[in-house]
């Protein structure tokens, strides 16, 4: 079902953990759908991502895409990090099954959400970045859809 790279990143996730006093933290996804990703960024005064960590609640693909996304943005400046798309994450993992493509989208959103948090805290504007739409508490109170 999964490529060797996905399995490798799932079994040996890179950059898993937390960063205390991170420059930016972003959490996206929804427990209801079974995926939540949180990205911590440590960004220096030159806007270079010095360190990045992630935590993920989700399936094998969700863990692997988060792990790969952190690898792809580490050491980059924020503009370059903005260019890390879900497609790039998927390609770096040698592909995902069709039903798991949304995991890579979530990874992209998580990076953006962390960058948004960083931009807000430091009162700067990052080109092409908009307020993250996903919220982990979204939909929690929603009525169950009728069977």
């Amino acid at each position, binding site marked *: 079902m999964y490529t060797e790279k996905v399995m490798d990143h799932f*079994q040996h996730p890179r950059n898993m953990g937390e960063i205390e006093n991170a420059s930016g933290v972003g959490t996206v996804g929804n427990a*209801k759908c*079974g995926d939540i990703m*949180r990205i911590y960024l440590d960004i220096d005064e030159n806007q270079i991502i010095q360190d990045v960590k992630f*935590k*993920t*609640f*989700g399936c094998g693909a969700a863990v692997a895409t988060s792990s790969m996304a952190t690898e792809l943005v580490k050491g980059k400046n924020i503009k370059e990090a903005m260019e890390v798309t879900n497609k790039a994450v998927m390609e770096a993992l040698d592909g995902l099954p069709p*039903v798991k493509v949304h995991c890579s989208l979530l990874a992209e959103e998580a990076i953006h959400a962390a960058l948004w948090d960083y931009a807000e805290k430091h009162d700067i504007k990052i080109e092409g970045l908009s307020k993250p739409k996903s919220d982990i508490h979204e939909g929690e109170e929603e009525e169950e859809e009728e*069977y």
Partner: protein
Amino acid sequence: MEKLIYLDNAATTKTAPEVVEAMLPYFTEKFGNPSSVYSFASGNKDVITKQRETIAKTLGAKSNEIYFTAGGSESDNWALKATADAYQDKGNHIITTKIEHHAILHTAEYLEKRGFEVTYLDVDEDGVVRLEDLEAAIRPTTILISVMFANNEIGTIQPIKEIGKIAHEKGILFHTDAVQAFGQVPIDVDEYHIDMLSASGHKLNGPKGIGFLYIRKGVKIRSFVHGGAQERKRRAGTENVPGIAGLGAAVSRAVRTMEERTAKEIELRNYLIERVMNEIPYTKLNGHRENRLPNNANFSFRFIEGEALLIKLDMKGICGSSGSACTSGSLDPSHVLLAIGLPHEIAHGSLRLTLNEEISKEDIDYVVDSLKEIVADLRSMSPLYEDFIKKENK
């Protein structure tokens, strides 16, 4: 050989050697069509008659009430569609539950599109149908009640006798999907007031692609497959002779071994539940504690997701299954876990382990030790767990 601990016996079981042995001659030297006149083939009719009788006996039924099918899903489809068809002059209402197998649920939805009305009963937090709900749902137009004997995910056994009694007092037909229960618990169709019962071969160490539908004599039921005169013209097509020979052998074996086998399974299953519940925090046992299938355990581990858990178990040679959405290709977790009131995120973290008689205590110890390690590992990765711990420490 690599380690393999197969704990997914509710999905399917290993075909028993004596079952394979019973089937083999019907592929090779005894290949004849049972409907043929010559004596070479007519022996094949005998095995069908004999195994039909074997199965009927275990249920307290008559052999002409057993109809061979291709398995549980076909039996369920047949029971619902053909009854709806035959009894539509009497009424258009069917009662079933929210925790049925999809072979029932999707057939019921299909019937709804055809103009039938269906009530899907809720269950309590253990997965048990409330009899007062059932009684309240009955209308003058109710033609059929279909409630599964035991649930395939959480193992809960329903009060079938009471449900059957209510159905019969009201003159309503009662069907039960016994795919998981048949061969694991004793069933008597008269004692339980059952009019129709679905069962499948591969859940009881028999072959795949064969099952049966018990239909009580007197129940009006339309043909499911039109054609030849097989199965009293109700289900045409040359009989699956090797399948029937295998199913019969599997049923004989299941009945013969039931007491000893299930006693062993219950003991080990309880040991598994006890160790998991004692040693892995933030874990819930799903399903009824006592009234459950002998080999079934179903847990929800908070803060983690089921597919990730299954992959990690697989790496350790352990086969299980999950009600997580990620294993089904949809966004929603198992309808059964939602029906017993689990929130989505907890339903996503569920694990079903179903034993067989070959599992040893050492196997269970290995599984629990592996589970402890994997659950801790996945929780260390989980933002939900991080938030929970921070909240606890405040």
